[in-house]
């Protein structure tokens, strides 16, 4: 090949790289290793984690849930045609991914109760960021009211990106476990100005069900959009955010087919009313036909996207989480109409059972009395960090120790995987570590 190009050696390939910039001695890294050695090293490293399952029975949630992943989903989601394809720029050879995304968009719209969904964002946090950006751009006003019931990490990410966009974020505090809407109390002492949007999570970070009817009424009265971060599992039982009048529905899609994986890759769910479709961030798949009139799919309304609008784009999203969205579509189809409802119901039953068992212990009290579905928060007589630490010694991931803003407490989530025997053992261990 070098001869064909008239080059003497491989080093001649770098003629354009100034000599002074070239690495004289290569990279300061270990030499290569066989796949077997690499896997053995990584397995040893992975062994220094304590696994949910065999090592720790998992009662932690907070946006990352220990749900079942059925064999069919694992097998299909690992098909190399899905795994090793690029973004579907050539639709004629990408109908597989495109149709799977079209089905995903349909499923997400049915769950969220609004008419259009994109082909995914990175995670729950990025979906919140994009929802806020959409609302601010549409309204032309920089203020957004964000409930303290929204996942604290998601709120932090929204704040991080607001440094660039200049959005003015006002926190709506929680009262009795649910968002104190400014009809009752204004945040801080100053009037925050007309908000472009109100962002609430339902059920919220503490697991409590929010009053979306009141939130929607407030949003309408202020000319603001209602942005709802929802839990797609709880949606198996709850009225959809769209039914309350939400403009944008976002969420974390990890519960459908994605293992805990230290938090990624997960799936940013993003859906909105059709009237906002021109501001939809990310990719959108639409149905069309080929030259022979056969049904076909293609990414559409491409003029919204960064590669065409460039500096005028309101989102820079390009690569997203397509494979996880496909996985989500497969798992939702595995569940189906009855399975999703059964899943939500089983989570709610297990949560009720666990909550009653913990509240029966001396000194364990609920943080709020508001109704919950699949997650709840309690105050413990000893610091929650200590509870988590001691419970790990007993073989349980007891939950998530809440940060100061919620007061000391423990956030507990119970999925369909938990049996009565596990929960009884958990409660018994809990009693022991409190003693």
């Amino acid at each position, binding site marked *: 090949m070098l001869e064909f190009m008239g080059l003497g050696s491989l080093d001649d390939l770098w003629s354009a790289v100034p000599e002074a910039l070239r690495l004289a001695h290569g990279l300061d890294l270990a030499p290569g290793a066989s796949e077997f050695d690499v896997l053995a090293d990584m397995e040893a490293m992975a062994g220094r984690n304590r696994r949910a399952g065999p090592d720790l029975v998992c009662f932690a949630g907070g946006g990352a849930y220990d749900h079942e992943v059925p064999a069919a989903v694992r097998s299909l989601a690992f098909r190399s045609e899905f795994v090793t*394809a690029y973004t579907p720029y050539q639709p004629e050879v990408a109908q597989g991914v495109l149709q799977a995304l079209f089905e995903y968009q349909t499923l997400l719209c*049915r769950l969220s109760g609004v008419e259009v969904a994109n082909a995914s964002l990175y995670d729950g946090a990025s979906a919140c960021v994009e929802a806020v950006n959409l609302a601010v751009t549409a309204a032309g006003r920089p203020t957004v009211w964000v409930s303290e019931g929204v996942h604290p990490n998601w709120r932090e990410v929204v704040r991080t990106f607001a440094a660039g966009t200049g959005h003015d974020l006002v926190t709506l505090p929680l009262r009795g476990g649910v968002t104190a809407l400014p009809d009752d109390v204004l945040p801080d002492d100053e009037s925050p100005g007309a908000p472009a949007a109100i962002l609430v999570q339902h059920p919220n970070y503490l697991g409590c069900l929010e009053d979306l009817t009141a939130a929607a009424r407030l949003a309408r009265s202020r000319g603001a959009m209602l942005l709802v971060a929802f839990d797609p599992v709880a949606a198996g039982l709850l009225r959809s955010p769209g039914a309350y009048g939400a403009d944008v529905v976002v969420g974390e899609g990890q519960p459908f087919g994605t293992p805990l994986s230290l938090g990624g890759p997960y799936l940013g769910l993003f859906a909105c009313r059709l009237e906002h479709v021109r501001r939809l961030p990310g990719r959108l798949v639409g149905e069309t036909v080929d030259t022979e009139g056969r049904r076909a799919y293609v990414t559409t309304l491409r003029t919204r996207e960064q590669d065409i609008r460039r500096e005028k784009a309101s989102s820079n999203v390009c690569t997203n989480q397509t494979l996880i969205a496909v996985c989500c579509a497969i798992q939702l189809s595995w569940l189906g109409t009855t399975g999703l409802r059964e899943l939500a119901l089983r989570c709610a039953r297990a949560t009720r059972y666990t909550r009653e068992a913990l509240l029966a212990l001396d000194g364990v009290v609920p943080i709020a009395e508001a109704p919950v579905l699949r997650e709840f928060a309690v105050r413990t007589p000893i610091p929650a960090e200590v509870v988590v630490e001691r419970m790990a010694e007993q073989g349980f991931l007891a939950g998530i120790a809440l940060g100061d803003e919620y007061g000391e407490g423990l956030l507990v989530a119970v999925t369909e995987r938990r049996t009565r025997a596990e929960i009884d053992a958990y409660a018994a261990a809990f009693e022991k570590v409190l003693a």
Partner: protein
Amino acid sequence: MSAPGGRASSAPVMGRDEEPTVFELSVPDRRAWSFRATDLPEWDAADLVPTEHLDPEPTPLAEVSERDLVAHFTRLTHRQYSVDLGAYPLGSCTMKYNPKLCDDAASLPGLTDVHPAAPAALTQGWMELLADLADILCRITGMHAATLQPPAGAAGELTGLLLMRAWHTHRGQTRTKVVIPDSAHGTNPASVTLGGYQTVTVPSDRRGCVDLAALREQLDDDVAGIMLTNPNTLGLFEEDIAAIARAVHDVGGLLYYDGANLNAILGVTRPGDMGFDIVHMNLHKTFAVPHGGGGPGAGPVAVSERLAPFLPGPLPVAGDDGTYRWQTPELSIGRVHSWHGNALALARAYAYILANGGDGLRRVAEAAVLNANWLRHRLRGVYDIPYDRPNMHECVVSAANLKKRAGVRAVDVAKRLLEEGFHAPTVYFPLTIDEALMIEPTETESPQTLEALAAALERIARESASDVHDAPRTTPVSRVDEARAARSLIPTWDAREPRH
């Protein structure tokens, strides 16, 4: 010569019928699901949740058996091109083969079954992996510290711009402009806007590189920095990079390295040595994380020492006893991800880097650049080559003359190439080249595959408009009506056939 390994025109197809949607396959009360026996009380929904919150009707989804579910999605995979099937010379996307080792590494139960909010004492293995990967990425790029949180390249860009902003703000400066070249990816200007800056576009010179004189005129103390891809999107190395860096630093600006094309320089030169202050990497390009049909990727950002205090946190940090803890840098811009980034994608890249080692990564760059230069030579005289001089990992050719002579456009070449059993190159980018075809063969395609690809491109260049306008004819669908999709939007199955 042996047969090419990267050509997929033999891929079997059972027919060219439409695949029904999962909703059309649905039959009431058919199901695939099952759950563990839990022995818990079987409370009704109304016992558990106040009725005003309950949806009286279950959300209608598809109702299919596991058998029909598996068959449906398997048939969809048969309508999908992928790297595992054949060559994917999509310029700027670095569609290299993804070693199967990385699948196994990312499936280790000790990595997948770990809750992100578990205390550090329970996740020491992950923290070690992430800290080691960050260190390795710094060695590869010549930087000081890194965050692994950004989940994609564009997220990395925006993180980098927010770091730039935090740096200037901390020094009491308000700057409003960021310079990008006219050949930049679209995510660059979009990220600049979201970072709160205005884009200033610097033109390319006759050699396809940044016009240094024009840049010098644009630089002043209102410029926060410059975003560059090097090699640039024409596949050309910015030879004046040292002078560019000096000029930007002289006005107090920072240099941002868009790592989209890092594959070309692995082990050869490093952004840190060129003078860059902030670097993002696309692990889904350079480090073989598969693209998943459009993600998940990973876009870590590495910075020089003076910017390290601003990195997103928390970062895994080793104590004297070798125990890792999470620590947030003192001037952190804050989190940019719900948790710690696309962790399993990071584990894949880690496996890839360990398997290659420092020596192997250098060979990756050599083969990538060798292959792209060979293609440029091979296609000389077949297509126009706007910048016919040594390129790096990709070469940009033009169908402008083909269009003039025979009415064959870049898009026609792309569609015809699909029939030849190859994925198409990137077309109509960079925007500075008329009828551009941007070809990035990557290091993993063999000489046999490269020759077959070149021969196919050569055949197509000899064809007339009437030969190519019907292409592709051998694919699951023929040319797709994109205008109709936008004109009469059908974003869901329900928009097509309303349920109510």
